[in-house]
């Protein structure tokens, strides 16, 4: 719509950059500089209180590697992210497609699906602690009702199951947002496109795969990016529901960083892990953007 303008415009002068000052100042002072400070702290033995700390080189990184903290927390975070991205997008898209059909009670279903996204993580953590509670939680009670042994159900205590347990909670909260965004994407599709497909003899599945999905590829991209970001930030339900346990089975990157800093009081070590997390996050983001850009053209 906008024509390409010349560099020097009388109306759009460089004086407009004045408008940037408040936001840029805050962003640089409270986000960018702290991020850079991390790199310096990562090679010190700073403990948060004593300002006479020493530079210890790569000792923090070596300790993190030797204690296998890096491997475990990256593995947990990536598992969490992959499951979250896959399930919340597939389920969110399926829900949105169902709600996009001409059915009754649409508003009710939509409201119900969106409700969990309004709750604070702390409230959801409490609610799901009850749902998962061994012997008299919601799932255990329901299992008893149908004749299974509910007392054996304890998803958060299992080394293998705990991580899945908290991922389910995050999915439960996030589907609503994914659904709303997909629904908006689906509603932008022109009816005539679908009619043209039907006239050409597309089956329902073909219509979805070759007409609808390509048309909402931008929406898919944004939803996947949003859920990858949410997954890499995994902290809330580890903090509220499992404290990283049992053992280290739910130690995500962010929770480990928090724990090393606040419980162990080893800020240097925590900063070192933050640097690693930073590299991991940037790498994943770049790969994802590259992949998404390419795929969007192909579809």
């Amino acid at each position, binding site marked *: 719509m*906008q024509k*390409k*303008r010349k560099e020097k415009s009388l*109306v*759009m*002068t460089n*004086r*407009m*950059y004045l*408008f*940037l000052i*408040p*936001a840029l100042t*805050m*962003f640089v*002072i*409270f*986000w960018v500089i702290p*991020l850079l*400070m*991390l790199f310096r702290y990562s090679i010190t033995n700073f403990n948060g209180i004593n300002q006479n700390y020493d530079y210890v080189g790569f000792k923090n990184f070596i300790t993190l590697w030797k204690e296998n903290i890096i491997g475990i927390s990256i593995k947990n975070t990536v598992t969490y992210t992959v499951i979250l991205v896959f399930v919340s997008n597939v*389920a969110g898209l399926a*829900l949105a497609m*169902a709600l996009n*059909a001409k059915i009754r009670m649409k508003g009710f*279903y939509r409201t*119900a*699906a*969106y*409700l969990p996204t*309004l*709750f*604070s993580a*702390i*409230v959801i953590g*409490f*609610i799901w602690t*009850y*749902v998962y509670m061994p012997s*008299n939680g919601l799932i255990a*009670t329901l299992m008893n009702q149908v004749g299974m042994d509910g007392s054996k159900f304890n998803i958060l205590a299992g080394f293998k199951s705990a991580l899945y347990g908290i991922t389910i909670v995050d999915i*439960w909260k996030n589907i609503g947002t994914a659904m709303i965004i997909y629904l*908006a*994407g689906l509603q*932008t599709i022109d009816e005539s496109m679908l009619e043209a497909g039907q006239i050409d003899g597309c089956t*329902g599945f073909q219509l979805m795969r070759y007409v609808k999905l390509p048309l909402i590829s*931008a*929406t898919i991209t944004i*939803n996947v990016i*949003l859920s990858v970001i949410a997954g*890499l930030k995994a*902290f809330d339900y580890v903090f*509220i529901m499992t404290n990283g346990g049992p053992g280290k089975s739910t130690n995500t990157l962010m929770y480990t*960083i*928090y724990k090393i*800093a606040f419980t162990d009081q080893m800020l240097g070590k*925590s*900063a070192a892990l*933050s640097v690693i997390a*930073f590299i991991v996050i940037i790498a994943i983001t770049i790969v994802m953007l590259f992949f998404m850009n390419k795929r969007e053209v192909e579809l």
Partner: protein
Amino acid sequence: MTKRNKSNIIIHILLCLYTVVTLAPLVIVLSSSFRSIGNMTSHIKLFSEFKLDSYIAAFTRMNFPVVFMNSVLTTFGSVIVVVLIASMAAYPIARIKNKRSRFLYYFFIAGLVIPSQMVIIPIAQMFNNLGISYNRFTPMIMFITCSLPFSTFLFTGFMGSVPISIEEAAYIDGSSLFRRYFGIVFPLLKPATVSVIITQGIWIWNDYFFPMVFVSRSSQFSLPVAMIQFLGDRENPAQWNVLFASCILCALPLVVLFLVFQKQFVNGVAAGAVKG
């Protein structure tokens, strides 16, 4: 016709199943919150008792009126500042088309992917260096900063829908840059403003991390932080009803707002992602 009915029935069944999974925990929390404090009969016997004991206990333990006001003040304050400075930042980024603007755009967006747990310690150091004291308003600084990337991104996306010709006309009529922005451009950004208020308002209202780190006196807690005090009570089954009542008290304000402004919520969340 019959084929359509059949597929509609399948859709209804699936949606009903999903709705049950979503609502079941919430309904149980609601029903248990109306029980008397020590009532430990199975929670799935819905609405078997109707008392306000648990609510009264939760209300006084959380110091509800005080923490509620703290939450309201910090959320509203942060959202107002975010709308103002993020939209202002988006103005030159969207309007001036050169490399510098593109760089600034990506510079802000990059902030989206950095989790707050990672930078919290240098931020605390920064506060010490700048002599910023910790009180109920300290988290606002971080609420605003963390909201900037997404809000700037959104406002920049919407700025394209405000025609430049209006501004050019105003320029010829002699309005200054500030008059042009606040008198013409900003009011036309209303859809983006609504979207920012809703998406950022929800996370700021619900965030417990920054207040947990920066606020230590209980009279200055926000609602979610007041809830953290109950963490220890999970082990004590006799306290569950109070816990549930406090969950409802904490979630109620947003749920009520959502039910009243449902259309704006849904459009705001969707517009934020689709337009940008």
